[in-house]
């Protein structure tokens, strides 16, 4: 599948945003006074900003963005529609929480709003993942490892950002010095495990369809394309015929792993030992960059390595193959 920048950007950034909102919601639900007011507001604003930025970018991907509102209508069948609805609904707890925190509430209202926020963040990320996993046409997406992956990456991004934001805003407590870095490291490891499993799945699972079943001509022998209907690319081949050389894929997988897993783990350890808050903040910042960049590469691969069944019709007739 063609890795369109807007989509990659959207899923990466909004994933971090929802991860952040989720962690914020979770924390405040557990302890509304966990953060000082400004910290809470900062995290809330950042989470909202990132999720909204991602959403906006995904609108750019549309051919008719002015009609985007229509996308809210088909939530009964469409995960994309559900994602839109969920994203919009998430703004309700965001606003409620913001208002409550602004007013200095620390009671039930904050807890309820925080729980709602956490739930909506998870739902939204799940919806996003479901858009992909529901596509039977793409083996690399239509499997059980995609949803955990999306959730884990959202959490990882969110945790890294939370760490960085708290550190940058001057917090100097166990949360920033120990808990969050530890969580980040664990999440990074979890992402690495999920991704490794995913890649193994992608590499080893045979496609459910073949040129033979696509054409129904398998009963006569092996099917190979001789001539495509058009000598140049068309929408299908551009959109779904993205071809990535195995060599490149392997390299990019390593790069992704280094950025989203190795780098965070490697920096979290010194960060936990370092005295200087400035250096801890720097570490957190680099971790965030690494996670975002790593996730971006991972997302790029998620698309680039995904083979759409329709390309079976073009088997053998495209120059890149």
């Amino acid at each position: 599948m063609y890795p369109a920048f807007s989509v990659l950007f959207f899923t990466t950034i909004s994933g971090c945003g929802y991860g952040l909102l989720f962690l914020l919601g979770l924390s405040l639900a557990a302890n509304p006074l966990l953060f000082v007011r400004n910290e809470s507001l900062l995290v809330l604003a950042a989470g909202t900003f990132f999720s909204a930025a991602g959403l906006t970018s995904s609108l750019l991907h549309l051919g008719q963005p002015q009609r985007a509102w229509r996308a809210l209508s088909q939530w009964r069948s469409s995960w994309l529609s559900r994602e839109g609805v969920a994203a919009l609904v998430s703004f309700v707890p965001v606003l409620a929480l913001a208002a409550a925190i602004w007013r200095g509430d620390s009671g039930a209202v904050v807890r309820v709003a925080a729980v709602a926020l956490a739930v909506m963040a998870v739902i939204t990320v799940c919806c996003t993942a479901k858009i992909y996993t529901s596509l039977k046409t793409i083996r690399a997406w239509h499997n059980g490892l995609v949803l955990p992956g999306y959730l884990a990456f959202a959490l990882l991004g969110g945790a890294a950002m939370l760490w960085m934001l708290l550190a940058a805003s001057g917090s100097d407590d166990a949360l920033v010095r120990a808990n969050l870095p530890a969580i980040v490291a664990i999440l990074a490891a979890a992402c690495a495990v999920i991704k490794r499993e995913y890649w193994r799945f992608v590499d080893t699972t045979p496609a459910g369809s073949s040129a033979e079943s696509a054409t129904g001509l398998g009963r006569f022998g092996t099917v190979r394309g001789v001539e495509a209907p058009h000598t140049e690319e068309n929408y299908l081949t551009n959109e779904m015929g993205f071809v990535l050389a195995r060599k490149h894929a392997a390299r990019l997988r390593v790069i992704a792993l280094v950025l989203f897993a190795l780098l965070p783990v490697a920096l979290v350890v010194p960060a936990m030992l370092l005295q200087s808050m400035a250096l801890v903040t720097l570490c957190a910042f680099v971790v965030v960059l690494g996670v975002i960049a790593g996730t971006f590469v991972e997302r790029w691969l998620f698309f680039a390595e995904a083979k759409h069944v329709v390309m079976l019709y073009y088997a053998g007739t495209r120059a890149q193959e």
Partner: protein
Amino acid sequence: MPHANLKLDEPVGDEVKTTTCYMCACRCGIKVHLKNGRVRYIQGNAVHPVNKGVLCAKGSAGIMQHYSPARLSKPLLRVGERGAGEFREIEWDEALALATRWLGDIRTSDPDRLAFFTGRDQSQALTGWWAQQFGTVNYAAHGGFCSVNMAAAGMYTLGGSFWEFGEPDWDQTKYLLMFGVAEDHDSNPIKLGLGKLKGRGAKIVAINPVRTGYAAIADEWIGIRPGTDGLFIGALIHELLVHDHVDLDYLVKYTNAHYLVVRNPGGADDGTFARDARGEPLCAARSSPSPARGGRPGWGQSREDASSQGGPHPNPPPRAGEGAQDALAGGGGKEQPSALSPQPSSKTPSPPNPPLEGEGFKVVPADAVGISPLVVGEFTLPDGRKAVPAFQLLAERFLADEYASETVAPQCGVDAATVRRIAAELADVAFNQAIHIAQRWTDSHGREHDEMIGRPVAMHAMRGISAHSNGFHTCRMLHVLQMLLGAIDTPGSFRYQPPYPKAVPPANRPGKSRKANGALDAAPLGYVHAPEDLLVDAAGTPRRIDKAFSWEFPLAAHGMLQSVIRNAWAGDPYRIDTLFLFMANMGWNSAMNTTQTRAMLAERDAATGEYRIPHIIYADAYWSETVNFADLVLPDTTYLERHDCISLLDRPISDADCASDAIRQPVCDPDADGTGRDVRPFQDVLIDLGARLGLPGLTNEDGGAKYPGGYAQYIVEHERAPGVGLLAGWRGRDGSRSGVGEPNPHQLDVYKANNCYWHAPVPPAGRYYKMANRNYLTWAKSLGFVGSTDAIVLELYSERLQTFRLAAQGHGAQQPPERERERVARYFDPLPFWYECVESEQPVFYSPLVGESARSAGEGAAHGISQASVAGETTTPFSPSPRPSPLKGEGEEQFPLSAITQRPMFMYHAWGSQNAWLRQIATHNYLYLHPDTAAAHGVADGNWVWVESAHARIRVPARLHAGTAPGTVWTWNAIGKRKGAWKLADGAREYTKGFLLNHVIDDLLPAREDGYRYANADPVTGQAAWFDLKVRIYASAPP
């Protein structure tokens, strides 16, 4: 609200007009829907006899052709060098005045100095006649490089032919052999027909080195080696003869198989028919029709006394279950040697003992009825000469080992068992599955018959056979195969399309001399009947610029457009003044050796500084490659903007059951489409020019224009002979006459009101056996198709070819010059034979001439040759140097692969690439080859390779295709384009990746001993031998 704007009842447009498609030469009926004055939709016309509503890809894309940005819009006068494409737009008056001046000068000095060649012309009834009025012999259309082998072989054998003059009996055939057909002119009818065959479960066998298109859906694919069909067909004949699976009754009734051929080696009458005092050909017949020696019936013959009922197929041949099986199993093989003439065993068959006149035999006129002719034996004529029936000569030739399945198998790449099986299948279907139609009819001798018997095996062939230098004889051999099976114009077999059959060959001979008014005595193209008809001077030198109808290419019935530029450039046989071309892309895909061809167009004479071809006028509708080489460009309209006429006097659109003709009417107005185009229909322009030149037939007594209304007026009013005009429908003042009748002033209106076509159904009793069917011939005569209702005898043996051979052997008044004798004698064999394609037969050069220069210039470009030519043709004068001496006998090894092209169904030659839709299907082409061929050459799918012939080389992308015979490589024709042509953007794939095989096809054959080089063409007909090309390939880096 689901889909608020869905409109289920929206009309297509606001107006609909019928006309005829021109996206190819098939000429289907179309309905053009207009909306707000623009073409909205073109659909096939369901009532039209040609396409019955279907429409091919090109036809549907006609709308984009009509609005193509590559349309010419104004007359152009060259201002730069030829080939540079620098023009000044001029007004029509200036353009016509200039053309009139050039042509007027020629006409008063020497009309032959005009070479008027009209390419893919659908108005040859006008253009040929115009040339005749002008008085030049130098006229032809594209037939000479297209399929004249097929046409000529048919006309000189059957008085009809494949091509679009005949068709398989789609409704009844049970077995179709298709030789070398990728698309055909009859595009849609063939596809409709194949669909019908599929529906009925008839078997289709495709003989073709490539399995695509029609061959893809065939039941059986025979991937033959190019150029060897004659061996395959010969072996089929061999098998049929060996097994006695031949319809001798049919042969003696409808062919000249029983005619006695004089055997007098060295004599002036050798190989001619024995004739009586009145000149009637003779045959040997039994004096008593009773079975004198207990002969047994064979194929196609009844067990009863065959003569008792007379007429064609008096008795049905054995049908399935009535002894057919045993006939099959028995064949002729269990034949006991006749007691009469025990022969020593011999590998090659030797003739039986001569029966003696009086011993139950007599010599009688061969065309007599009620006789029982003999087809074998040597007979002594009353004057003492010896003669044998033509059939025996044929049998001797094809029974020889040369045509045995085992012999041909390795040569044509079809194993012997397959050949034998196909032969047996043909025989089985023809004889055991014969068709009987209860239909009374009268034969040309006046005998009544109750039924029509059909041999439901049909054959069809096109350029896969004809575009070889052995195509004439191969095609003739195919017709002989049909005759042996009794499968010409019977139910289920090949059928003539009216106005065919005509006399063998048709009566019209090419015009030779000029009348007082300067016009030729006959149209420039026609059928040479005898050496006397050739267009040669006293020394035997060609009189035509293309050397058609000369001793080099005596039966070049369609002329040789492919030789014109070379000959005009070389001044061989003479210099011309003006080359006037109409819709022939001679600077590109219509030319062999394209690079040099363009150079020749642009070369100046060193002595005078003038162009070697002083004037070039070109009428095209689009910016084709050739436009840049013209001095004066006359822009034509698109096909939706003019009147046109698809005449029975030209290539007809009839089918076997109906004679048809048609018109085009303007459905759009070029002036009104807002683009400011100032274009005129070429036919109008030609008529205007004729009037300005004062040509007879185009001017009135007072010198005024006879047809100021242009072509539309000409179509209606012009009479070729009294009552015969371009259109056969609704003639007579009141429109009540068909075929022959006075001009009808409202004729075009009636056509327009009737879907733009006219058709006349063949009467039911005339549907088959047209060549000897009085019902048909009477009908045909009434429409002016034939001159008499006499039977047309199919020529198994061609005495006419023999007369040329005799001339070459020193007999007769008109003899070839010394240097042509051997060649004429060889190729004018009265019986068909196979020979290796001429190019491969001759010692092959390896000359790096063009390839070398091109290579350095073109290195790094997609196809070296065309790139090099850009410089060559515009700046450096081109001067071919003499070739180095040949490396003898190295052809096969040096250039082991056959390279051929196929028509893509979605493109028409060069026109398609300007079409926004069609070019999306293929902006460029590949060289296709079998995986084994590729492996042998170290080529992988998608690699670039050099394709190199003895002439030149090009670099092309290759693709694997298992449906290609190993040893053959092929590509789609005419996809590659010359940079700048057809108004495509820079870097268009057609320029950079698409390629033209023509670059590596030489237009000349390797030199004769004395250095002379013949055109790369069939030595009988002058048919361009596109598919003789031999190449080698080797991997290359991408450009």
